[in-house]
């Protein structure tokens, strides 16, 4: 993985007495104190993170948390007070005016919350905007703009004006405008927040589709955690200008870094994010090549369980055995477990979302077993564990 964007010590203070505020900040004073003493607002406080090439990176936070300030410092619509942003090793805050324009023209596309389409230009002209700035010849402009409009599903609207389109369609134009440019980095500032829920879901799906094809580096700002969990490869959670946690969606749900993140993720629809592997528990297993009925029964007694899972030498699932059947087997004097193994067990892959399983799990009395692609046994899913995971409790007991 290549680092695409590297944010180092990035700080933004708004106000007049910036040197004093900076000093207080370095002494570890918090936002409220600094505001009271200097009248300055700390927008972003010493943010450090990197974004990899091809990653969909979501920055989350409530309004006023500094997320919009961060995204605007990445393409330097806002200058930083301290710290820098590196894009492909280029320090953005050190660039000359000319170099900065070049960077914006060639590498970065931006999509805005309220679309920010140019009302005096047609849909096609809007999509051509970035190319026109670069003075690309007009036939290439049109070709690329049309490709981008195609990609976002806006065929045949070329000659319309933005105010003739619905909100969802307007944002498609906004997305096309950013894509037509062949920008490697897309900055999406609350891009879907102003849309109706239905359009919003459509746009999320569209973005994921496009990302699958294009592998852009996308920095997505939002305040809706469900959206972040759906879209993000990694999520950064901000509060009051500070980074609270950076991690993959599951990590954030299962291991919130602190109380704030925990409260933040309350009420989120976990079933979409959590997979079988995050709710499974360790199964009690014996290896059929090494153990016979007596070992199996002892293991069950020791662990106070009534059945045991049986695998082969390669840890592939063979079946499971009931304590009752095993003790019958011992009475008969047989040493082969195979005759009493039950194999009709519900099975699922480790990366299946719980959302897809939840119905069946609630109907089946016996636990699901979780396997990987090669049928190796990973664990089992107990009903209680699913409920616990959805309600946000620690799973891995």
């Amino acid at each position, binding site marked *: 993985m290549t680092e695409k964007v590297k944010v180092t010590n990035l700080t933004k203070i708004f106000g007049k007495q910036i040197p004093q505020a900076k000093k207080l900040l370095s002494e570890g004073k918090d936002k409220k104190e600094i505001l009271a003493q200097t009248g300055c607002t700390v927008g972003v406080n010493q943010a450090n993170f990197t974004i990899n090439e091809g990653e969909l990176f979501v920055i989350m936070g409530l309004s006023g948390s500094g997320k919009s300030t961060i995204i605007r410092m990445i393409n330097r619509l806002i200058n930083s007070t301290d710290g820098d942003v590196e894009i492909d090793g280029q320090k953005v805050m050190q660039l000359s005016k000319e170099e900065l*324009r070049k960077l914006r023209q060639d590498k970065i*596309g931006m999509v805005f919350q309220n679309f*920010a389409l140019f009302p*005096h230009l047609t849909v096609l002209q809007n999509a051509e905007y*970035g190319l*026109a700035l670069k003075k690309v010849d007009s036939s290439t402009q049109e070709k690329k703009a049309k490709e981008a409009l195609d990609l976002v599903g806006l065929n045949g609207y070329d000659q319309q004006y933005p105010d003739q389109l619905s909100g969802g369609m307007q944002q498609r134009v906004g997305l096309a405008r950013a894509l037509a440019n062949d920008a490697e980095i897309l900055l999406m500032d609350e891009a879907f927040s102003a849309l109706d829920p239905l359009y919003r879901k459509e746009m999320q799906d569209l973005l994921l589709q496009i990302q699958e094809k294009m592998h852009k580096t996308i920095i997505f700002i939002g305040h809706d955690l469900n959206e972040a969990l759906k879209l993000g490869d990694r999520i950064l959670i901000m509060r009051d200008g500070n980074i609270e946690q950076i991690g993959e969606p599951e990590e954030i749900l299962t291991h919130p870094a602190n109380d704030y993140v925990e409260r933040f993720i309350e009420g989120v629809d976990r079933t979409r994010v959590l997979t079988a592997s995050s709710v499974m528990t360790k199964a009690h297993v014996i290896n059929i090549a090494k153990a016979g009925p007596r070992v199996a029964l002892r293991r069950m007694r020791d662990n106070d369980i009534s059945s045991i899972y049986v695998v082969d030498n390669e840890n592939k699932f063979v079946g499971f055995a009931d304590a009752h059947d095993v003790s019958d087997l011992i009475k008969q004097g047989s040493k082969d477990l195979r005759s009493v193994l039950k194999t009709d067990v519900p099975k699922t892959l480790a990366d299946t979302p719980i959302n897809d399983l939840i119905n069946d799990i609630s109907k089946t009395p016996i636990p699901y077993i979780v396997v990987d692609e090669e049928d190796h046994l990973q664990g089992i899913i107990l009903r209680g564990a699913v409920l616990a995971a959805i309600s946000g409790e620690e799973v891995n007991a």
Partner: protein
Amino acid sequence: MGSIGALPLADWVNSGVDWLSQFTGFFNSITAFFQAIIDAIQWVFDLLPEWLFIIVILAFTYWIKRDQKKLGFMIFEALGLLLIWNLGFWRDMTQTLTLVLSSSLIAIVIGIPLGIWMAKSSKAEVVIKPILDFMQTLPAFVYLIPAVAFFGIGMVPGVLASVIFAMPPTVRMTNLGIRQVPEDLIEAADSFGSTSWQKLIGLQLPMAKNTIMSGVNQTMMLGLSMVVIASMIGALGLGTQVYFAVGRNDAGAGFAAGIAVVIVAIILDRITQSFNKTSH
């Protein structure tokens, strides 16, 4: 206050005017330049016979208002211009038009760049705003006196007085129009890496067009309101007719010339207004 004595403000201004009068060459070249513009416009008007002029105006109206209702207005135009012709004010009317159009032209050429500068620089705004107030409120007669001294008698000082009085709306509205362009559109233009020139031409001016046009419209109307005053320093046109009528205490003649001014005003107003109604 009596103990201080009156400040010699008038003397200061007089010595300033005296000092300026050494630059005759400079003022002569300005006069020549303005005169050339005025002559060119008047030459075009004199070239057209009355009936052709009316047809040209009607055709222009038809084209400019192609998306709007216009029949009533076109009838008004035809009748109004025929009335002016009939009253014998035709040549006066074209001279008035020349005065208004040349002063508006100069006001726009200077005013729009000034308005752009004001919008881009808050320092410029702070300096220019009071000057505009000054230009609009200082009684015209006050600067007519030195204007005659520098530019002589005739159309040129009349045009100059009109420019001073009529330019502020164009400057103000250009400034306002550009400043009203929504911040997120400016951000969008910046985020795609536009130069300030690209931003101005491609976004700010097109977005501000309607506001600027209403400033231009006001500039024209104010220019027209100056014709009577301009006639006092020798600018020819309908104003001269009104001025003479006042001098002769002839209410009827004054009213007839006044009506002609109103007709010209309405025609100019409606035509310039329809510039900013054409959407997209």
